[in-house]
């Protein structure tokens, strides 16, 4: 849907090559593209204006002859400035040295506070802490039950006094209980509210005064539009935000709201929610979001996902097998399982620069189904068949097809693919051996 900024800039600047220095007019043309890209990414207009004027200053006078491509040079400046604006520090949670640290979660309705509370509790727990969740949202129907369910799932106790106790006395009681039971930190899930709702903002101020939180984190929906600035500014004005948690980054939003929120509060984005599962919660990486806002993909996250899902030991074993050519259908199955661990294919595809425009053109559902089918087929084989595929004759093929809910043709296709993969490996192994022996070209 959107052309990436780099493509656009390349287009605008193609004519410029070899014309001396970038003039104001050249840069103005480039800045129009930057402005467009940022606005399409939902960065607030006032932030965009400030930003483009800063980039403009740095860009005028770039020596076109010296820089290989003026477009690349401008992109570099844009990216540097974006990353600087998003914050270069590695964001950490500030926790008090003694006594329970209170972490207060605030934000609009539907931003994802309760889910974030559960995810944050899991994150803290995995760092060896003993958090307490506090259900201080007494207004939304079933908000308390929701937090209780989440608390149970992540194995963290939830403090509640039902929905008839006011949020302020409840927060006080929770703090006392945390002290008694030696729970630390205390995560307060407050009710969602509109930033223009004075009464409820006042309640938040009172909770703050009663519990003296070390962190007041604004939970913000990454898909928010131009409104992000006024929301963040108002919460900041009333409460003094210490950090931001950006949720729903698993959507295909460019996430320009992060920039707006950051510039309105000066507070760093500390975490990002990237999915429905409770462990889909990451420390925030400003440089990666900068790439994403510019539509330049997110290779680093992809690599990290691959590393997390990939078992190094298994990989080494596989490599040995490949060398010795005893790669079997069982190894094939392992490979597929590892790929699946990395997440849905379309999410992975989005992280590759330039690939987001492929969305909709390739049906990933199909590939995903193929993988699933292949897995079912291999699962329906006996161990002997997996190790020795050539024993699979007609009757076995029928049995396997029946067992996996596929057709004999599907089984045939898989076996053929596997056979071809093996042939290719054999060829590669020969190439490598020949190369080692003295760099001869392979015979044809």
């Amino acid at each position: 849907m959107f052309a990436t900024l780099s493509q656009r800039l390349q287009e605008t600047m193609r004519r410029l090559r070899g014309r001396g220095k970038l003039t104001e007019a050249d840069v103005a043309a480039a800045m129009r593209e930057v402005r467009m890209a940022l606005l399409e990414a939902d960065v607030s207009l006032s932030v965009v204006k400030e930003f483009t004027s800063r980039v403009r200053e740095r860009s005028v006078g770039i020596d076109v002859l010296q820089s290989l491509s003026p477009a690349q040079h401008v992109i570099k400046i844009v990216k540097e400035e974006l990353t600087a604006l998003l914050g270069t520090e590695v964001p950490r949670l500030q926790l008090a040295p003694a006594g329970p640290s209170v972490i207060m979660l605030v934000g609009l309705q539907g931003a994802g506070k309760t889910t974030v509370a559960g995810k944050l509790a899991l994150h803290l727990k995995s760092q060896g802490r003993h958090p307490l969740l506090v259900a201080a949202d007494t207004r939304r129907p079933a908000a308390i039950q929701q937090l209780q369910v989440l608390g149970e799932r992540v194995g963290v106790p939830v403090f509640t006094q039902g929905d008839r106790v006011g949020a302020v006395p409840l927060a006080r009681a929770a703090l006392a209980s945390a002290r008694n039971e030696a729970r630390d930190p205390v995560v307060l899930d407050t009710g969602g509210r509109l930033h223009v709702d004075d009464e409820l903002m006042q309640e938040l101020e009172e909770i703050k005064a009663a519990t003296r939180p070390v962190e007041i984190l604004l939970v913000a929906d990454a898909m928010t539009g131009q409104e992000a600035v006024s929301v963040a500014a108002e919460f900041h004005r009333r409460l003094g935000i210490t950090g931001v948690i950006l949720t729903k980054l698993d959507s295909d939003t460019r996430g320009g709201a992060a920039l707006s929120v950051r510039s309105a509060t000066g507070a760093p984005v500390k975490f990002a929610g990237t999915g429905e599962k409770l462990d889909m919660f990451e420390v925030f990486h400003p440089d990666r979001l900068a790439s994403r806002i510019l539509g330049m993909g997110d290779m680093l996250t992809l690599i990290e996902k691959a590393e997390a899902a990939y078992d190094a030991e298994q990989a080494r074993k596989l490599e040995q097998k490949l060398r010795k050519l005893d790669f079997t259908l069982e190894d094939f199955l392992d490979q597929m399982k590892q790929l699946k661990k990395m997440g849905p294919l379309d999410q992975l595809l989005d992280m590759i620069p330039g690939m987001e425009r492929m969305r909709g053109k390739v049906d990933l559902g199909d590939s995903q189904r193929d993988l699933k089918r292949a897995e079912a087929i291999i699962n329906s084989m006996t161990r002997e068949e997996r190790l020795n595929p050539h024993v699979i004759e007609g009757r076995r093929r029928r049995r396997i097809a029946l067992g996996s809910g596929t057709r004999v043709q599907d089984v045939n296709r898989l076996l053929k693919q596997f056979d071809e993969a093996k042939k290719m490996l054999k060829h590669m192994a020969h190439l490598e051996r020949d190369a080692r022996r003295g760099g001869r070209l392979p015979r044809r």
Partner: protein
Amino acid sequence: MWELLRSGLAKTRQQLAAALQGVFGNRLYVDEAMFEELEEALIRADLGVGTAGSVVKAVKDRCAQDRIGDPALVLPVLQVELAARLTRAGGVLQLASRPAVLMIVGVNGSGKTTTVGKLAHRFRQEGRRVLLGATDTFRAAAIDQLEVWARRAGADLVKHAPGGDPAAVAFDAINAALARRVDVVILDTAGRMHTRSDLMQELSKVRRVVGKALPGAPHETLLVLDATTGQNALRQAEEFRAVTQLTGIALTKLDGTARGGVVVAIADQLGLPVKLVGVGERIDDLRDFDPEAFAAALFET
């Protein structure tokens, strides 16, 4: 009746009015700079760069055609243009069938369950028998939340255990509605990101099952959209339309927020009408959408 929408839109109105005051107020003649500022005001209202540009171009053409030189006369032209774009998509809730089946879909946190509760209340006030289907079996305590709303509104509820098959819940809800001679069935589906193809397939299955349980159903499939959402709303509408054949938008949280302009882009580019507007936290703060009133309320000073 429009008082509530107006008060809900008060902030939008103030902000846009202030912005437009700046555009139109202190000018003596219509010029290029004025149209540029107008475009910016529309961008700030989340219309998006493309739609804001095309609206401004249309207004500009109209002004040139009618030789409008007085900035004060540009505002009505703008209002008419916006209302026309919103009206073109048109649309009222289709409730003629008995039972009429409404399927409520959307991304996480857009306000689906609350909208279902408000709708149930409204239909009950109109004297209809209402049955809610708890097809959100995924989110923690979603069923409890819907149960509270059903009690408040006085509606029947069909539910399964958490984690159950949403299509099965939908099927049971419709059969129960047929047996109990209910007028309106509202299905509250689980929130899902439009990028999750597996979950979108699940939704498409729920829709198919609904159509099998009652031919012609669902009669309305509404995308619930948070009014603070930016340009991503367009992607949401596209993706949900692809799997569920959306019939309209329910725009929520229009109270206190200054925006909601993305619905102009959605009506414009996808031809999807806004049918409902949520303007407050109270159970009766849900309104039919009226394009003219909406456009007028945007610019009322």
